[in-house]
């Protein structure tokens, strides 16, 4: 009997925490999602007469540091104008002092939902390429996402792919994260030993809190982890994380993970060897052994999709022949049919 009343209480508490939008151009409609730092609401922009998503700091997390983080997230997104990144329309402060920002309302499905719904493998891989585009764009602008995971990717009704939740993104001063320069700018700087991200998709250097080591290759790891999820239906780090660990962004000390990642082909023998190799290269514990950037990872996945040889996987002769036959199946079949038909005609003529 207590369960319904608990739910009612929970709902009442949430409604009581709804932000007061008095004095703003927005009219609150409903709560959409709730994270560790903020809550996303559906709101109506009265001026432009359109629906928007409002991200507001959660009441329990409201402090100066979180407010600055949310402002920084809004600035980061505003700086990254790309079709794969949700545009920010506005940033402001509510009458109760909480910071909010308004962004485009994204409808569609999360990547994890699509994968679990049985999206075909080639479609999944094409989505991975689309996810890589805004991430590579951000890297080119000196921004590392640090929290890439299927739950942070939305696929819209027209196939548009949007990378969300740039709340823990890191800025690098040199704009070239893989260059080896270690000069974080003041904005977005995270203290050494602080761990941000989602454990199951987190690169080892990120899990160690080794902030200076975190660069574009940490996002390459996360994309490799998303590929792992696409291939096996689970995150590579799932086995490394205790069940009571939070699944959302978290911060705090954590021992570096030393467990081996189970290769996708061990989890599912139907996973192609080339994809297994791409995935494991992206998930290498040592950043130097991963792809140097997102573009290199995407290029290898695109090669697989085109039936070309992937760089991560040295092929044996039989594998190469099979790949060739698979890539040129139609012309090979046509030529074979032509030759067979010519032989049959010859045999018929001799009878």
């Amino acid at each position, binding site marked *: 009997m207590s369960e319904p009343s608990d739910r009612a209480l929970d709902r009442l508490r949430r409604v009581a925490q709804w932000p007061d939008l008095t004095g703003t151009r927005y009219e609150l409609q409903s709560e959409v999602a709730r994270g560790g730092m903020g809550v996303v609401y559906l709101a109506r922009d009265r001026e432009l007469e359109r629906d928007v998503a409002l991200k507001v700091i959660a009441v329990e997390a409201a402090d100066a540091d979180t407010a600055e983080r949310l402002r920084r997230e809004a600035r980061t997104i505003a700086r990254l104008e790309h079709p794969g990144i949700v545009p920010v329309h506005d940033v402001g402060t509510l009458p109760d002092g909480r910071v909010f920002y308004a962004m485009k309302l994204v409808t569609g499905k999360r990547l994890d939902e699509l994968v679990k719904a049985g999206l075909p493998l080639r479609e999944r891989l094409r989505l991975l390429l689309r996810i890589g585009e805004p991430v590579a764009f951000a890297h080119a602008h000196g921004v590392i996402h640090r929290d890439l995971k299927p739950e942070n990717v939305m696929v819209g009704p027209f196939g548009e792919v949007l990378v969300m939740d740039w709340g823990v993104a890191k800025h690098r001063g040199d704009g070239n994260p893989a260059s080896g320069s270690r000069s974080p700018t003041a904005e977005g700087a995270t203290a050494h030993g602080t761990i941000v991200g989602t454990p199951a998709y987190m690169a080892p250097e990120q899990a160690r809190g080794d902030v200076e080591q975190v660069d574009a290759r940490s996002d390459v790891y996360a994309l490799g982890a998303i590929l792992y999820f696409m291939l096996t239906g689970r995150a590579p780090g799932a086995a490394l994380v205790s069940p009571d660990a939070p699944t959302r962004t978290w911060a705090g000390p954590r021992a570096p993970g030393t467990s081996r990642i189970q290769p996708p082909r061990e989890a599912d023998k139907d996973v192609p060897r080339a994809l297994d190799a791409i995935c494991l290269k992206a998930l290498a514990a040592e950043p130097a052994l991963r792809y140097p950037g997102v573009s290199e990872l995407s290029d290898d996945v695109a090669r697989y999709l085109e039936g070309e040889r992937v760089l991560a996987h040295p092929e044996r002769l039989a594998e190469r022949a099979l790949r060739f036959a698979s890539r040129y199946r*139609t*012309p090979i079949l*046509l*030529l074979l*049919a*032509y030759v067979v*038909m*010519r*032989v049959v*005609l*010859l045999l*018929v*003529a001799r009878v």
Partner: protein
Amino acid sequence: MNKPLVGLIVGGIVGAFDGLSALFSAPEVAPQIAGIIVGSTFKGVIVGLIAGFFARKVNSLPLGIAVGLLAGLLFAYLIAMSPDPATGRHYYWEIMLPGSLAGAIVGYATQKYGRRPGDARA
């Protein structure tokens, strides 16, 4: 290279080989092989142009192959209607079957290769 040009070149080459391969399936036509090769090359070029112009308009591998196959079949039929001047015999199967498959190969090539108008240049 645009698609009709791909069709023209591939059609010519495949047509020439198709004509030459008549020596294999019907050795008795050896005395007329030069004329067969020329005729088959010409047929291949025409089929290639048809498949190429089709590929410029329609982006579909199965349809491209089907159009090549049908065009090859049609032109091979037109050629097969003329009997062998020496024997008076018609070679319908010997000309139409390979002609249609050669057309299908050309249809495949025009769909896979060549540039459509408006395609971005590399």
